[in-house]
Each structure stands twice: as structure tokens, then as C-alpha cells.
């Protein structure tokens, strides 16, 4: 139900947003793009955001004529939250004849399912896998989700700009989350490099936890002036809320996983002031992002989160690479395996102007992203809504130089 209804809604709104009526060039068979993300299980919240991002991309590009008049169609298969589910979904997508796959949601799932797509010669763009070693799985694997090495230090520097007296830093991270464990490594390194005092032991939690009082009491006993949290929306939001309830008044830096309006209902007014490391900022003022943001807000009533932005960028990469191939040799002249191989090569040879800013992929499949952001959350009086306010960083341009992850 959901998928159909939302896309109908979206194309309607899109027509309004773009001020055009439907372009009637949808006569040929659509080109299939697979979306294999977690639509069920306890990571469904992330998958749900990815589905929306991908659907907006589908509607957006079809409105603009698809691939030179030939529409695209997304094929969804639920990976659920486990490795076997990801493999099953990927097999289904490959069998359905998709030209490429956007997915899966978790890095651990990617390590299971990506080798199969690679073996089958189907290009994959990971929308949210940030663990070390993802693009190295194989030549057909790329990712649009930047590993965190670049973003995290900027957020800590932003905190120091706001409060230069910071000395003690307490670090918390979700121990069972692949993303948070790699991100916290960068955060801890940055804290040491900046000559700050990292409070030991570093406190850990699980993404399924809801109570953090023990960790908070232990950390607050060492009197931190800065707290850094790497986790996801629900756990991260609750941790922030409980930190404030326990009387912590200093600055809080949230990792990339907290870069979503989904934390607003969790910590409500207490979210105010969190400094967030962002790989996507809805405030980016480009045509594609403004349109994306407008459609998302119309459909979801809030600002688009990073997961949706990244999923959009992944679909966009496929579409624009397909257009380039069509311009060059014509899609019809290629068999499906040839098209998949050509698509994979094409992805790595051009630049895409996405809602994330201009991106490209290295030969290995790692994203080269130029713009990263630091924002601070500002909650409205009632604590129901808030916004991410962009914090400019002085040496932004150099700092944001993309950095390939060390290969494993």
C-alpha cells in the first residue's frame, strides 16, 4: 500500500513543485533499478527513510523524462535486518533484471550480500554502509555514504569554537553498531590530537538500549565540558535527553547517526544545542537539493534526513550514468549484462550534482564528496519541531578534502 500511495502522491506534488505537467514520454519498457533495504525489523526506521528518498528520486527523474524518454521503475525487495534476508532480497532483485541495486541498509548485511551482486556483475551503490572495507568487496560495489573520518573532526572543532575552555571530553558510542564504532574511533583520535582530556573508560551502549543513567553518572563524575555521542536516532536521542535530565549543561556533539529529525520526538526540547556532524545538509542551496527538500517536506512534513538524501543520490547516480550511456551508445544496443558492466564503469567516470553536493566515485567505488557540514540543533519553544542550523567552519574548504578510507 505504502509504496504505491506515496509515489502517486509524490508525482502529483512533483508536477506542482516543478510547475510542469507530466511529460508523456513513458512509452518504452521502464529501466529497472533495485532497492534492497530494511523495510521491516528493528532497523526499519532507517530503511523507511531510504525508501522515501529513492521514491522521490524515481518520481523526480521520471518527471524530467527518465532516461531520454524511457522511464525508470524501482523494484523494492525487503532485506529485513539480517544477513540472510539481504542475500535473499539481492538474489530476487538480480533475477528481476535490475540494472543496479541500491542497498543494503547495514554494513554487516553488505558484507554478506554484496559479494553475490559482485559475482553476478550487478553494480551496487550502498546508501548507508560506512564500515571500512565496503567498496573493497568487489569491483561492482560503490557507496554514496561517506565514511566518517572527515566529518567528525569538524564537529569537535566547532564545539571548541563555541566553548574554547573545553578540557574534559566524555565519549559515548553504540557498541553493537558498525557505524558508531568506526565513528567513535575518529572522534577519540580527534580529541587526543586537539590535546583534550578524554575521560576513560569510554562509555558504551547498545542501539536497543533506552536507559543510560549508569553510563551518564560514571561519565559526569569526571566533570566533562563536552560529550560526544555516536549512535542512532532513538538511542542517541534518549542519551541526550537523559544527559540533560541529569543536569549536564555543557556542549554535546552528535555523530552522523543523529543527523535526522527523528531525534526530535525523542529528546524534544532537550535536543536543543546538539552539534551534529553531517554528510548531508538540507540547507545546501542547490537546485536539485531545494527540489528534493521541497518534495520531501511536502510528503513527510519535516526536513529530509541524511538517509533519504543519500538514497536519492544513489538512485540519481544510476539514472544519470544510464543517461550518459544512452547518449553514447544507446541502452537498446546493450544486453543486460553488458548494460550492467557499462553502468558500473560509467558511474566511476563522471560527477553527479546530488543533494549531497557534487559527488563522484573512485575507481574502487569509494565516494568522493566535497561538502560536509556541521550544524547545531535549534528546537522551537514547544519542543515538537526543530531545525539544523548550519555552523560555518573557517577552514572548511581544506578540511573537507575527501579522504579515501584505508583499505583492509
Amino acid at each position, binding site marked *: 500500500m505504502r509504496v504505491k500511495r506515496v509515489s502517486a502522491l509524490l508525482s502529483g506534488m512533483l508536477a506542482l513543485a516543478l510547475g510542469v505537467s507530466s511529460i508523456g514520454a513513458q512509452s518504452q519498457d521502464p529501466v529497472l533499478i533495485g532497492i534492497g533495504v530494511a523495510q*521491516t525489523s528493528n532497523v526499519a526506521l532507517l530503511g523507511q527513510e531510504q525508501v522515501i528518498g529513492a521514491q522521490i528520486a524515481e518520481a523526480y527523474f521520471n518527471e524530467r523524462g527518465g532516461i531520454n524518454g524511457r522511464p525508470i521503475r524501482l523494484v523494492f525487495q525487503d532485506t529485513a535486518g539480517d544477513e540472510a534476508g539481504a542475500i535473499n532480497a539481492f538474489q530476487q532483485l538480480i533475477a528481476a533484471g535490475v540494472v543496479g541495486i541500491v542497498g543494503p541498509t547495514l554494513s554487516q548485511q553488505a558484507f554478506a550480500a554484496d559479494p553475490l551482486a559482485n559475482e553476478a556483475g550487478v553494480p551496487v551503490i550502498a546508501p548507508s554502509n560506512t564500515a571500512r572495507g565496503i567498496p573493497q568487496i568487489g569491483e561492482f560495489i560503490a557507496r554514496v555514504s561517506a565514511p566518517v573520518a572527515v566529518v567528525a573532526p569538524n564537529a569537535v572543532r566547532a564545539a571548541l569554537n563555541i566553548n574554547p575552555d573545553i578540557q574534559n571530553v566524555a565519549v559515548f558510542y553504540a557498541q553493537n553498531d558498525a557505524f558508531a564504532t568506526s565513528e567513535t574511533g575518529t572522534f577519540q583520535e580527534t580529541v587526543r590530537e586537539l590535546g583534550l582530556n578524554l575521560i576513560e573508560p569510554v562509555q558504551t551502549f547498545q542501539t536497543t538500549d533506552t536507559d543510560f543513567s549508569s553510563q551518564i553518572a560514571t561519565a559526569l563524575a569526571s566533570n566533562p565540558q563536552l560529550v560526544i555521542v555516536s549512535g542512532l536516532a532513538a538511542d542517541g536521542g534518549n542519551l541526550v535527553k537523559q544527559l540533560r535530565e541529569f543536569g549536564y549543561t555543557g556542549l554535546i556533539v552528535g555523530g552522523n547517526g543523529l543527523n535526522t529529525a527523528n531525534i526530535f520526538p525523542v529528546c524534544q526540547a532537550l535536543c536543543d544545542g546538539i552539534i551534529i556532524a553531517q554528510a548531508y545538509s538540507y540547507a545546501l542551496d542547490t537546485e536539485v537539493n531545494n527540489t528534493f527538500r521541497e518534495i520531501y517536506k511536502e510528503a513527510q512534513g519535516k526536513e529530509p534526513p541524511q538517509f533519504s538524501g543519500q538514497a536519492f543520490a544513489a538512485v540519481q547516480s544510476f539514472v544519470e550514468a544510464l543517461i550518459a550511456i544512452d547518449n553514447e551508445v544507446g541502452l537498446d544496443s546493450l544486453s543486460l549484462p553488458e548494460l550492467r558492466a557499462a553502468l558500473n564503469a560509467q558511474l566511476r567516470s563522471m560527477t553527479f550534482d546530488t543533494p549531497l553536493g557534487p559527488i563522484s566515485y573512485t575507481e574502487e567505488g569509494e565516494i568522493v564528496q566535497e561538502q560536509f557540514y556541521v550544524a547545531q540543533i535549534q528546537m522551537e519553544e514547544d519542543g515538537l519541531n526543530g531545525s539544523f542550523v548550519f555552523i560555518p567552519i573557517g577552514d572548511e574548504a581544506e578540511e573537507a578534502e575527501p579522504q579515501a578510507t584505508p583499505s583492509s
Partner: protein
Amino acid sequence: MNTTLFLQQLINGVSLGMVYAIFALGYTLVFSILGIINFSHSAVFTLGAYFTYAFMGLSWGFNGLLARQSLPLELPFVLAMLAGGVVAGLVAVVIERAAFKPLRQRGADPLLTLVSSLGIAVALVNLIQFLVGAEAYSYPSARVLGPLGLPPALNLSTPEAPLIIPTVRVVIIFASLIILALLVLLINATKVGKAMRAVAEDGTTASLLGINTDRIILFTFFLSGLIGGVAGTLVGLSVTITGPYLGISFGLKGLAVIVLGGLGNIPGAVLGGLVIGIAETFAPSSLKDAVAFVILFLILLARPQGLLGKAVVQKV
């Protein structure tokens, strides 16, 4: 560890333990009367939190079948919580009628009931997601603590050496204790309670004595669902309704709590909650789940029937 930190952690442990306890009370009630582990309690607990949200007249998010819908009534939080609890109780009654009663009539293995309740939990959790999406929902604090003029947290000591407890946790502690007291009173001092005990002892004999076993079982399920629904709301208030898996994430700890306390022993659920809550709080954060379960393991070795459970009389 200094005294203030020790006391603070003790408060944290008690407060967390009571969260486990309030989840486990309705869970253990069904076990005490029917001798079955009812996994669907987790889902009923979650439903209670969502029902309360609906009764407050708040609207659903943008995903799922009920996107942007809301009920045309706007109850204050406390009333909505009670209404949510009653509806959760009715859901439990439906589950009993549709799934457990037919199994009981066929004299099925209690493990079969456990598996059936697992199926129901899976279905309900996914139904919630189908209807209202996977996003988090919260009761706006302005409509909950605001009208009562309560701050988000209380300081039980001086400003210099504070001992903090979030206000909602205080509510949960009192609610757990009140529910515990009422349940003990109900079971030990009322006619219904006597009938419940008789059914727990032996359903057939109870019906021979003129007790309407069927109705007592229904009542037990209703009560369990009511307690579960209210508990879900209070926990949802404390940590927000983090998604359809809110209750499921308490399933394992909840089971540990009632087994540790002694299956079917109602005060045991509170004691078990406290032991696990305090153990977790004092453990190093990276090992806290393991420490809790190692302690559970060791206690079970020393007391194979749980802390307050009656030793099983072995038949000869």
C-alpha cells in the same frame, strides 16, 4: 567510587529495575495463573503506548496506512493512558480467546502456547509498522508533566552533591509498587483472587467447585493487558515510543526478570527487576548485559526455582 556516585548508581539501578519490573508484572501474572510464557505481552505493552498516543488525539506520521490520521478526541494524558490500558487489556482478551483457549482445550504443550504467542507478537509488531510506520512517537511533554508543574528530573540531595532521578522514573517506581500492592491484595484478599488461585492450582477442580474458570482466565488476561498497556505508556513516556519494537526490546530482560524472581511469583518480578537493574548499573558499560546474565546464571544455580519461587516437589 565516592559515596555520591555510589548512591546515584544505586538510584539508577533501582529506577532501571523498576522499569523492568513494570514490564514484567503483567507478564508474570499470566504465568502465575496459567503457567504459560506469553511472548505477546511485549506487543501488548507496545500497543498500550500507541493507544495512549492515539487517545491523546495526536496524529500519526506520514508513513503507513493510517498516515496523518488522528482520533477526533483529545484526552488528557492520564485518561488517555487508562483508556489505552483498557484497550490493550481487550487486545489481550482477544488473543486469549483466539489463540490460547483453543490450545488449552486441546491440552497442548505449554511450549506450543509459547510459540503461538511468539507468532502473535511478530504479527502485531509488523501490523503496527504497517499501520503507523517505524518512526518514533512521543507524548508532548507540555501535555504530560507540564500541567502538573513537574520538572523533568528531581534532585534528592543538595545542589553541590546532587542525586538525580528523572521525574518519570519516580512515577514508574510508584506505579510499579502500587500495581504490585493491588495485585497482591487482589489475589490474596478478594473472592476473585481466591478463584484465580484455585484456577492456578487446578482448572478442572476449580470448575467443579463452581468457579467459572473461563471467566477467571479472561479476567486474568484483561488485567495483564491493562497493566502491560499502562506500563508501555509509562515507559514510552520515559524513553519515547521508539518504534514498533519498543516492547520487544524488553522481552529478553523481562523474561530474565520473571524467571529470576521465580516464575509466576508476583513480588518476585519486582525483586528480579531490582537485582538485574542494579547489577547492570554497577557493571562496566561494555559488559553490562553479560554481567546481568552471568549473575542470573549464578543465582539460578544456587536457587534453581528462582529467588522467590517455590521449589518444585518431585513426584516419587
